[in-house]
């Protein structure tokens, strides 16, 4: 019985440890995102498509981990990124995104440059907003930072 308990504790510890570790990694990505100027880093003309898509792919997993991933009109940012990576392979000028809305399969097509800039900004900004909110959330709380 005691042994079982120990195993259970060890398991529980392991689980919580792995969660906090990955959350810690995500926090590190927030730190890194704070150094990024999206106006520059997400500009396809000056950086090239591949670099901009890579930036999006680098930051978005942390946004997912922290529960702050952007989604616009039914399309998650990870779906933008997946579509863009396929477009890079096929050297297509457009990107067709497949997504589900209310259980129905849907597609939407964008010019690659447009979608890449959006995916990059979505990924980085989601993380930057986490840090921004740390400073601003209390300003909206009546009786705390919000005076009326």
């Amino acid at each position, binding site marked *: 019985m005691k042994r079982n308990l120990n195993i259970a504790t060890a398991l529980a510890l392991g689980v919580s440890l792995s969660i906090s570790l990955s959350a810690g990694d995500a926090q590190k990505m927030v730190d890194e995102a704070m150094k990024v100027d999206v106006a520059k880093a997400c500009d396809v003309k000056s950086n090239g498509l591949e670099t901009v898509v890579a930036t999006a792919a680098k930051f978005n997993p942390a946004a997912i981990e922290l529960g702050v991933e952007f989604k616009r009109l039914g399309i998650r940012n990870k779906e933008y990124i997946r579509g863009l990576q396929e477009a890079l392979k096929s050297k297509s000028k457009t990107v067709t995104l497949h997504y589900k809305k209310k259980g129905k399969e849907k597609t939407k097509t964008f010019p690659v440059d447009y979608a890449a800039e959006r995916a990059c900004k979505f990924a980085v900004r989601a993380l930057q*907003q986490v840090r921004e909110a740390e400073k601003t959330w209390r300003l909206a709380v009546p009786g705390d930072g919000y005076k009326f």
Partner: protein
Amino acid sequence: MIAKAVKATVAVMIGGVLLNAGSFDVQAEKDRQALVKYFMKKFSDPVKNRGQFFPYATEEDMKNIMPVKKVEDFRLGSYAFSKVGRSQYEEINEMPPYEDDIDAGEELYNGTKGIKECFPDPAIAGEYPKFDEKQGKVVTLSVAINDCLKAHGQKPWKLTKGKIADLEAFFAAKSKEAGKKVHITIPSKAAAEAYERGKKAYYAQRGYLKLSCANCHVQGSGNRVRREYLSPLLGATTHFPVYRLKWQGLGTLERRIKGCEKNQGENPHKPGSQWVSEILYFMAYMSNGLPVDGPDIRK
């Protein structure tokens, strides 16, 4: 003698509860009182407060927004202050579209294995979300129902609509009938921490629109997005499950929160997740003392 002892025990118990509650819900109680003060001030005299709270309202808006005199009225959401909204609401409620759902919920209550044992008193809608000390986490009514089903060897239900909403409609109707009020407790340090996380989530700006829940439902409440008046945080959880005309059916708090996150431009958290349960815990606490008013209808 025995009676005396019982009395003393009861007194100690009450004292204990008060003491406990007093020690962990101090901040939450402060927050709640400030929120009540905010909404009562904002809507006590909309014409007088126009410059401060409704700076971009049109003349038509000012004719439509009624003063709110009683805190309880906020259970009506934006119908507490929108004249036009209120009259449409009253019209639809003459033939409530959720009556059949309450009946279906009663059948589920009586006919589903385990449910009666888990919820011997169905008038408990106002007590959820609850901090479950054993599990060390917040449990919404929807989650509690599913936990019960699982404990009795049954498949859990969808957390957003369908059977779970029907059963909750029955619970809410029974609670309303019994005159129950929202009564959310914060029994421990862990519960207080969960409340704080929920509060922070509510006030943090998120999504590609960089909107917090509060942007619309605290500071923005009483103002409009297109034609729709934004409802107040105070009272927001009192009338669930809710029949929305937009949904053409009943939905739980979990379903509604998902919609809000979508509107902010964020991939919604999973219903039943810690994040969703904790934000609902905070929201429900803000409505403490208001009457349970579910199920009800909304646009």
